[in-house]
């Protein structure tokens, strides 16, 4: 991938020129047609995509219903990164990311990233650190939301809500 192109992607600004060059070797420029999936829900862990143009929607399956739209991300308005969790986890993906219009993106393939980690390359570890910081912010928000919901469930004091409240409390992951 062209290193100058990558330099324009804000997401890589925390890397030195030398480290950017390492990712330039690993990265690929990809284009998605409208309606094409960048990431599919419940699939193998994803690669990371930094969107450079276009718009994507994030959807999640609700059993017995149509896909639920969670967000629309517009690369022209904000720095947009999807699939970053996939670089760090072995778990399957949790949502579908679909192009609404033609989308251009820089892809960091998961396998190449993992190879860089195995080789002990600092650039890969720096990227992992950057992703971790993003994940912690999301986890904090999710954590607050779970607490708030548990409190509301309790406040209603309806017997059949107890099961849901208890489930939330039992399954709560240690944040």
């Amino acid at each position, binding site marked *: 991938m062209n290193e100058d192109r990558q330099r324009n992607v804000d997401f890589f600004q925390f890397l030195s020129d030398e480290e950017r060059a390492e990712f330039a070797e690993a990265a690929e420029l990809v284009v998605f047609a409208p309606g094409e999936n960048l990431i599919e829900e419940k699939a193998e862990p994803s690669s990371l995509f930094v969107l450079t143009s276009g718009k994507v929607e994030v959807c999640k399956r609700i059993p017995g219903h149509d896909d639920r739209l969670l967000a629309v991300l517009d690369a022209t308005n904000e720095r947009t990164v999807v699939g970053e969790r996939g670089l760090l986890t072995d778990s399957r993906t949790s949502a579908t990311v679909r192009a609404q219009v033609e989308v251009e993106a820089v892809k960091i393939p998961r396998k190449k990233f993992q190879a860089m980690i195995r080789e002990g390359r600092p650039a890969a570890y720096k990227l*992992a650190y950057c992703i971790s910081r993003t*994940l912690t*912010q999301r986890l904090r928000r999710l954590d607050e939301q779970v607490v708030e919901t548990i409190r509301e469930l309790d406040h209603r004091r309806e017997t059949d809500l107890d099961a849901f409240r208890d*489930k939330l409390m039992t*399954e709560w992951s*240690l944040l």
Partner: protein
Amino acid sequence: MHVARLEGLPLFEDLTSEEKAELGALLEPASFGAGTKILEEGAPTGYLYVITSGAVEVSKEVFPGHRQCLAILEKPAIVGEITLINGPRATASVMAQGPVEAWRLSHETFLEKLEAGSLAAYKVAYQIGRILAERMAKTDESIAEIVAQLEKSDRDFEAFRDKLIQEWSF
């Protein structure tokens, strides 16, 4: 000697002996009596603790005055690792169940190592990131299950369902 302090701990398993010695040298001993709070939810904390003897209880306050126990951790265990990355305030309380012996690593010192480009520190941060990513995936699955149950119900659960979905990670 410093290397031995970190042996057998998954958080440090990717480190070479030299790297373990580098971080192990930064550890300070710490002791806690039964019932002592090692970390307090919402309060500033400046250390990661490697528990080398005893057990600790991890809990969160769900309702005012009501704590939910999330886990009992026995040696060898690590607590306070998440705040190394996500900021100075503890997201849960950790209390010694009996006498506890530990090594502690100052967050400030660790962050200085990161800033200096220490590969050992980056490797530890990577492992913490993996823990976070797995926890996020697990939380996500739990919420998905609860939302599915809410959908099956004939009661008006829309408000709760929407609240849960709102902050869904992806």
